[in-house]
């Protein structure tokens, strides 16, 4: 039995300790915005925030997350949102729509989370920063638009101040 904090709420689970977080989210909690793409930590479709870091939920076990703050796409947007409406996540999501990024859209939640984590640390990333940080796969080939959307979201952030984390932890240097 493990208790985790998911989207601001404590969740107690009885799944086997070695169950990857992804399957707790998808099958037990029905938080299906976190997608399954490879199960091996490669594609990033399952990316969630763990203590504000982008983590691949298929590759971390439930047991390892007992003290962690986990935020899924449902926690960033929509009814289960745990952030303020004008948060960084809203900017990223708005940029995804403005640049008409999604084709099939299966990669979008994971990429949006990865982008939120990037912009929290590096509010105005260079193309090289983006290349290094965003390793999620998009088989539909929306990469040129992903890049534009990240720049668009970044340009909507204030130049000087840092993006606020939902949990009050300061952004990493």
């Amino acid at each position, binding site marked *: 039995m493990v208790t985790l904090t998911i989207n601001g709420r404590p969740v107690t689970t009885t799944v086997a300790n070695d169950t990857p977080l992804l399957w707790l989210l998808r099958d037990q909690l029905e938080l299906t915005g976190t997608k399954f793409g490879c199960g091996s930590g490669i594609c990033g479709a399952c990316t969630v925030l763990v203590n504000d870091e982008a983590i691949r939920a298929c590759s971390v076990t439930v047991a390892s997350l007992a003290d962690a703050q986990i935020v899924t796409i449902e926690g960033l947007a929509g009814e289960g949102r745990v952030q303020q409406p004008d948060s960084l996540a809203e900017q990223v999501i708005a940029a995804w729509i403005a640049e008409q990024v999604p084709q*099939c859209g299966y990669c979008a939640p994971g990429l949006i989370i990865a982008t939120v984590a990037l912009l929290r640390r590096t509010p105005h990333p260079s193309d090289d920063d983006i290349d290094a940080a965003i390793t999620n796969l998009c088989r539909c080939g929306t990469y040129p638009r992903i890049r534009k959307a990240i720049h668009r979201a970044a340009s909507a952030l204030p130049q000087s101040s840092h993006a606020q984390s939902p949990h009050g932890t300061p952004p990493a240097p």
Partner: protein
Amino acid sequence: MSPLINLSRRAVLKGSGALILGFHLPFLPVPAAMAGSSPMAINAWLKMSSDTVAVIVARSEMGQGVFTTLPMLVAEELDVDWQTVRAEMAPLDPVYANPLLGSMKTGNGTSLASGFLPLRQAGAAARLMLMAAAARIWRVPLTELTATAGVVGHAPSDRQASYGALAGLAGRQPVPPDPPLRDPTTWTLIGRSPPRLDSPAKVIGQATFGVDVRLPNLLHAAIRHCPVLGGTLGKIDDSALKAKAKDKERSPTGYRPGVIAVVPLTNAVAVVAESWWQAQTALADIAVSWNEGANADLTSASLDSALTKALDTTDSHAIAIAVSHGDADHAIAGAARVVEAVYHQPFLAHAPLEPMSATASVTATGCTLWLPTQDQEQYAKLLPPLLGLKPSQITVNTTFLGGSFGRRLESDFGIQAALLSKAVGRPVRLVWSREEDIRHDFYRPASVSRVTVGLDAADRLIGWRHRIVAPSILARVDPGALKNGLDSAMIAGLDDQSYALPALLIDSVRRDTGVPVGFWRSGWHSNNAFSTESMIDEVAAAIGRDPGHLRRTLLTDVPRTLGVLDLVIARAHWDRPLAPVTGGRRGRGLALHQAFGSVVAEVAEVTVFDDGRLRVDRVVAVVDCGLVVHPDVVKSQIEGAILFGLSAALTGEITFDKGQVLQSNFHDAKALTLAEAPTIEVYLVESREAPSGVSDAGTPPIAPALTNAIFDATGQRLRRLPVADHDLRAQ
């Protein structure tokens, strides 16, 4: 609003609240399969409520934008605010058959082509019926009414009513047989780029894909196929899954907690459990023996040599001649110069980001599927004999497709889900692991092509001979279409190529390999564009001509293709030298191809570093796809098609040993990443011709554009894909 409207509104909405308008457009072609089965060949459905207009979309949304572009066609003629339009997926029903494909199917770049007229007509007819309804309520002549932005108005009496308020009565008006369509100069949606209707749900994780289907009482399944392609299940030993003594009470099935059933299938074993992870881990604990069958010795080397050997066949019964005009053999025999090359292309996986998945609920009286599929109708044919049901008892609900690229034309995962649900008597959601997806695909066929070109003393092309050897897709999916056992479909893109060639001989040789093959984005065009567009480049090099300008001289009689070529030459600054880089060599390559009614030309720019690394810097594409309904969707599809094809050309290759696929996940079946993606510019040719296919048409030119660019940079001619198999270090 006047009191009269409120009255009428109440009257109309008294029934259901949301009313359905159906259209019978009898002047449209009715597919043969439908003839006689349905007296009401309804071509489009529109649901209206007071504040939204739902357009039923009868094509699967896999990223190509049909949830936006098809509703645009209806909305344009209906004259409604785009903000009020919603897209809704059609259920399986003969009325939703694709007139160009003969069944409810999505593919071949036909969605817009088949919908362009009927969906506008449906919108126009609906608008007239709404006006007719208002005319009856207000007792005014139709000619005094306007209908715009979702509102019918009568200026003389200053009355207005929303479409939604009129919908119920409108649905009972006679259907105008030949509604006039708007003058294209007055279009307000077509040709613009309104926001995609599917994006908002997708970006917040609320869109339902195949893996996301939720049902009460749902169980989860994982599957493991016979590792040898074509092999079958032998014996299962699931003793390791049996419940330990302490768990016995909690386990009515006798298996360890969570595991519900182990289900044998013809070529696989599946575990059904309370969660997918339990099912997947249980699979690993089952010992299975397989009947490996005829493919147990198959290797990539044996496949390649079988295909290559067949290039030289002289058995006329093995050769399907597709095009023969002039005497190419004679022209080549008498040529002053002959250029000949053999091109090898590998098997390729589709690997959409969402792995194969399907959810089924089978009872004694019916089977309902929820799944991402490009071909709904096949299940009504395939499932009844397996389940003991009638075709009318099969219901198919289509979810969003997390990519497809042709993979979800296949029926395998949907059938498996239905058999599993039947076996356990509860709804089951089956999700394949990525490993199963990579290892049990219907692969893009490998091919070996030989192209021989004869030139006269003045370096004019006088003969072209082209042979493709490959395994047949038709032999599996539509054996009736084979002619004398030959698959002539594999020459797609060769028979209608545009170059002026006085003597031409195109043929194909079918060599089945035991590897399951299927349609992959653009089908055979991907194989055939590579061999053709590589050869044109080889000829140009052999005679010292610029490959862009050589193509021009061969296209003088084909103004549409020439226009595309000229535009790409201009936009890519083809005639300007590339800026040099230190430590590397730069090059530019061009390819063009016609497919699915569209012409696409692409120029790739590359840098080949001295240490052998390759960087694709930029791709410029020009597209003539007829009338452009949604420019931004077209551009995004071309971007995607280029990157999909580029990913395959750079690293894509499925290889075999002992009948098994050697790749298993994205670490060895690599997919292009953001850091590797070039800048892409897409230019669209203005056209008033009917819209043609886009998302397939962008893929074929990129592989030859890439290898032509590598040749330009290095002098190395790559005749075997993928590029990653070659050493590009400076000599």
